[in-house]
């Protein structure tokens, strides 16, 4: 237990010591999105009846920040340790794969949720937001950050170089987050693209999260919750197996 606690503490301290880059900067980016997209589309788009576009945008931006930063945390921590070689400090002690898994995932969740909360705090001054179903907000925020934390862990285990990780981020994580309905409702898409969007697991995270604010969503939030939970379980099993086998960590 102390081993897990220490690894969690180390992972949190690692990003907290450079919070300007790991927490403040993503909040700033989300604020820019809100100002620019909000201003550009404010008068043209009405997604749900009675919900202003900027209000619609905020939960999506919060969730996007949660997801991207949860992913960044575990993946960049692991790849840096691999490249600099200090991963041995974690591989030599008697830490179990469950301890490693939980510490990396939880630290990623802390960073993701911290950034998400920061985005929420700075954007809420611009537009009023309601809380139709707060439990959904909490559930999707926790699950979404956990999933991306685990995904970052898997990417970090797999990648051997920074550019491989960057490719993972640019060609998978970024498109999936941007195409998940952060900036639009999938109902506004042509039928084909609406169906394609349903294949994107990130869509369910954002849609369910947004339901928690407006009580309205593209699909039933319970269904989203079930899909997101299964996704979390599958990724957890995969990550645990990789860690237990020492895949790319213990040669």
């Amino acid at each position, binding site marked *: 237990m102390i081993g897990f606690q220490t*690894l969690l503490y*180390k992972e949190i301290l690692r990003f907290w010591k450079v919070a300007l880059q790991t927490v403040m900067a993503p909040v700033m980016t989300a604020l820019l999105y809100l100002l620019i997209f909000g201003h550009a589309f404010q008068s043209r788009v009405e997604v749900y009846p009675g919900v202003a576009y900027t209000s619609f945008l905020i939960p999506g931006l919060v969730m996007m920040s949660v997801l991207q930063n949860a992913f960044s945390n575990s993946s960049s921590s692991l790849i840096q340790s691999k490249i*600099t070689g200090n991963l041995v*400090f974690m591989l*030599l002690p008697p*830490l179990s794969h469950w301890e490693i898994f939980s510490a990396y995932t939880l630290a990623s969740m802390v960073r993701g949720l911290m950034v998400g909360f920061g985005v929420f705090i700075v954007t809420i001054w611009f537009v009023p937001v309601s809380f139709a179903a707060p439990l959904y907000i909490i559930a999707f925020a926790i699950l979404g950050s956990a999933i991306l934390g685990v995904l970052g862990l898997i990417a970090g285990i797999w990648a051997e170089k920074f550019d491989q990780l960057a490719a993972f981020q640019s060609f998978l994580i970024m498109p999936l987050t941007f195409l998940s309905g952060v900036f639009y409702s999938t109902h506004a898409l042509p039928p084909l693209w609406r169906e394609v969007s349903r294949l994107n697991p990130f869509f369910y995270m954002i849609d369910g999260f947004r339901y928690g604010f407006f009580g309205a969503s593209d699909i039933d939030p319970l269904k989203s919750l079930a899909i997101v939970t299964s996704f979390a379980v599958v990724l957890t099993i995969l990550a645990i197996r990789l860690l237990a086998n020492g895949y790319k960590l213990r040669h």
Partner: protein
Amino acid sequence: MPAIEIRHVQKRYKDVHALKGVSLTIEEGEFFGLLGPNGAGKTTLISILAGLARADQGSIAVRGHDVVTDFRAARRSLGVVPQELVFDPVFTVRESLRIQSGYFGLNRNDDWIDEVMANLDLTEKADANMRALSGGMKRRVLVAQALVHRPPVIVLDEPTAGVDVELRQTLWKFISRLNRQGHTIVLTTHYLEEAESLCDRLAMLRRGEVVALDRTSALLQRFAGLQLVLRLSNGVLPAGLRSLAADPNNVNGQQHSLRLNSYDDVEPILAQCRAEGCTFDELDIRKADLEDVFVQIMNGPEVIEGLA
């Protein structure tokens, strides 16, 4: 129960057969040296011992705990100083040591951390960031990190490569003290005089195989003993003496090293040389050191009989 028991360990990396069935037993309390040229498989063996790599075949146990199936107990018994100079640039020296203690399940370990730092002359740097330390200081922290959990078995993989004299002396003083207190020490090094003066017993690895394994004193005696070094000003080495040459490939030059069984061999050899018309520029009798043994073994036949 042996400190380390290595049984038939094999490891292959793509086209390199790094370890070809290594078996070794290191007893509790030994100061053991693992020698061999670069690429002999020392670091691979240590990586498997430490759980950083997995053996293709065979097994290793640390104090009876298998390093794969009972890895928690095995790793608790083991402190490893890695060869690469690695560090986490985010933390200070004390933070690094506290975190490393935590990984081993130790919470309030500051008394021991202070003692280790004092012994390695690190106390002044306790609150310095790792990034700001010199190479030698970083090496000391690596040693300290390996010792935070007071491991009964300590493995040092070339700890003195590129390290100044002062640190070497500090390090060996501390490590020797730990050895006297009962810790088992396993050392790989390129500095053979270090191995000669510190290690009770030695294994030499060559291309993934153990080619020599014995007490240091026995190896020195068996392989080198005394040597008569002579420089001829006239004549060539008599044919009858060529079989005594330490380096059989070089019997035509002026300088020769001949193996002696005892000092009594000197006079007959000199007499034989004179009988063939040789005169001497220089004569010297020296006791061979580990370097001669090393060179002989590394250039010798595949596996030395009667060992292992």
